[in-house]
């Protein structure tokens, strides 16, 4: 009955509405596309000017890039004549026939044509290893590390360098080039630097003063000098330090330089991971009477490396970009093959350089960007358990 009484009472007061008023529509210009643009693009005079300037810039850049890569690009031709400005081609963009003709050179360098299937198998094996070790749900991941750090290096060496006894002719490393060398340098860098970096990181946190001091000296020294001086050291000083007949070949010297350099950076990344493990874990290992290597291998490192994966991948991106520096000590990596091809008189034209660099840029960008996406994905995945809800 109270409800009815209430209704009655309300009806008696003249200035109280008996029914709800339908809500007004939102003020014009605050919803939908226009509202969004107002809030995000034209919220003030300064912002509006900025938006217009940026829009002009972005459109100009986009049009220029599309023009260069597609609209004005030359798609067919036999030599430089196709890629120079002529009355028929007042504007010349990318010179794709140059890339098409030199594509195999960019991938394999001067690796003998008949043996290039070996390189293809190496790429495939490496791809399997990378997917196996990076995809956290892949089957038998326990075997992945063994494959990546032991089986793969041995097989790759036999495959790429050759072995007379099993009928694979020797291919001298001076013939290797292009993407092959870039990938080999990056792969050797990561395969050597991760174990070595872990050892250095453990050494830096060791209780033994001599081990600690030596690790610190190595890490800080290498991190304090540019990679290029390390490469110079490896390529001109290393041959002096070994007996003459044992002198390593050019590629191996660069590989040693890169691997040592990357190890120092990897060591710092791993050290950060080791420091993130709570003390209790170390003490628990001691309490279980585990020996040092058991404690590290079974308790500390599995946890430390797992949280370090994003940083390890980021260091690998740096390493991948740094492989271009072997160019300066005369190794034919992808960038060097592009440099060599672009000044070839057969194709030299005003657009050849830009075309070559565009190919290199796309290659490096795709690799580095996908690695950085992976690192970010791992970061969110690893922090899922610690996220506040």
């Amino acid at each position, binding site marked *: 009955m109270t409800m009815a009484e209430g209704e009655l009472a309300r009806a008696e007061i003249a200035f109280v509405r008996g029914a709800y008023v339908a809500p007004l529509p939102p003020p014009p210009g605050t919803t939908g596309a226009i509202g969004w643009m107002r809030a995000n693009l034209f919220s003030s005079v300064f912002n509006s000017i900025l938006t217009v300037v*940026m829009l002009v810039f972005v459109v100009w850049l986009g049009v220029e890039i599309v023009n260069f890569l597609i609209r004005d690009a030359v798609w067919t031709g036999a030599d430089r004549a196709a890629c120079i400005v002529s009355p028929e081609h007042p504007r010349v963009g990318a010179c794709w026939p140059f890339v098409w003709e030199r594509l195999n050179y960019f991938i394999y360098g001067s690796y003998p044509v008949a043996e290039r299937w070996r390189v293809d198998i190496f790429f495939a094996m490496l791809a399997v290893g990378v997917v196996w070790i990076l995809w956290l749900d892949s089957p038998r991941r326990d075997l992945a590390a063994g494959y990546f750090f032991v089986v793969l290096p041995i097989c790759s060496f036999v495959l790429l360098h050759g072995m007379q006894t099993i009928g694979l002719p020797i291919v001298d490393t001076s013939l290797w080039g292009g993407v092959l060398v870039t990938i080999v340098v990056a792969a050797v860098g990561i395969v050597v630097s991760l174990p070595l970096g872990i050892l250095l990181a453990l050494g830096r946190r060791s209780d*033994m003063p001599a081990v600690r001091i030596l690790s610190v000296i190595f890490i800080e020294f290498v991190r304090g000098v540019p990679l*290029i*001086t390390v490469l*110079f050291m490896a390529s001109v*000083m290393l041959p002096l330090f070994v007996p003459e007949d044992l002198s390593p070949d050019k590629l191996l010297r660069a590989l040693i330089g890169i691997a040592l350099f990357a190890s120092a950076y990897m060591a710092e990344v791993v050290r950060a991971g080791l420091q993130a493990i709570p003390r209790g874990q170390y003490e628990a290992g001691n309490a279980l009477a585990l020996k040092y290597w058991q404690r590290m291998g079974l308790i500390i490192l599995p946890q430390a490396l797992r949280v370090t994966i994003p940083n390890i991948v980021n260091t690998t991106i740096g390493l991948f970009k740094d492989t271009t520096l072997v160019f300066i000590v005369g190794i034919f990596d992808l*960038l060097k093959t592009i440099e060599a091809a672009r000044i070839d008189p057969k194709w030299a034209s005003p657009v050849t350089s*830009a075309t070559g660099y565009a190919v290199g840029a796309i290659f490096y960008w795709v690799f580095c960007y996908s690695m950085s996406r992976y690192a970010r994905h791992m970061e969110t995945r690893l922090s899922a358990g610690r996220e506040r809800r």
Partner: protein
Amino acid sequence: MGPAETSTVRPKQSLLFNPTLRSVVYQTTLCLVIALLAWAAISNAIDNLARARIATGFGFWYHTAGFDISQTLIEYTSHGSTYGRAFWVGLINTLLVAVLGIIGATILGFIVGIARLSKNWLVAKVASGYVEVIRNLPLLLQLLFWYNAVLKALPETRNSLVIANSVYLNNRGLVVPRTVWQDGIGLPLLVFLSSIVAAFVYRYWARRRQMQTGKPAPVLWVALALIVLPVAVTLLFTGLPVTFEFPERGRFNVTGGTEVLPEFAALLFGLIVYTAAFIAEVVRAGIQSVPTGQTEAALALGFRSNLGLRLIVLPQAMRVIIPPLTSQYLNLVKNSSLAVAVGYPDLVQVFTGTVLNQTGQAVEVVAITMAVYLSISLFTSLAMNIYNRAITPVGDRS
């Protein structure tokens, strides 16, 4: 690590498992192995050097260099100057590009980093696109691109781009008017220096007054006036002892004026663009580490958003920004060694390149180069640590 002290009766332990003894044995072995390796390396080096008839020691420092360097900020001639002089020329060129690079990268990096957090959607997207593209491309590729595909594709000398009849841009570089100092420049220079001191004194006074009375005083405009006016008056009074030498176009080259080498421009530009992308990320992370409440508090106190950013958010973000910023500066200094790829005469190109090739004394040359970079690294970290300490609030200092 040490044995428990509480137990009175300790079980007899085999000497084989004594931690102290084991540790001593391990360390001695390690040191011995390293000493052995070093000894082998040195004896091999002595053998190899003797066989190749390469001199040892630092005597080459005083030998005549005999090669030209394209950019010399100190006096240097190919026939009269020593390798030691060439080293200094290279080092100064490295420092020049590093210092200008650090300044440029800091400015661009802060702009891009702040732009990434802008409320303007387009600006934020452009900034993050810039960072994602630049960070994921090798610096060497970028340098070669700027040098070979951009600067070398500029018009030849004959068709130089000319701005206001005084700036010439062509594929041999950029030529700008040169300032020529004449006698009688001493007085204006003195006035200039003392105006700067006066401006700082004024700023100190204005700050103090604001602290004590709450009355703000205009700093920027007064300081500018303090510096510009007296200098301009003195310059007029002394009869303009500064003139400009304008470049003139000849048939094959541009004469007069100050020339900026394309190698220098490509290297500096490449380093700034590359490092700025990393600094932008550092700045973004730093700003995001400041709680949103701080920005809201600034708005609540009536600060405009840019003033709130400058006075409230950035000073707190700097604590997070400085350490990674330092390592970016160090990276820039180390990356300047890529000058060798575009032919800018920096320390590595001149010393580790030409001098090493001419003398063949790899050990000494590489050791000196590494020592230089190590000292630069140490010095930069030291300077940045001092700055970091200066901006850390007193209570937070450890």
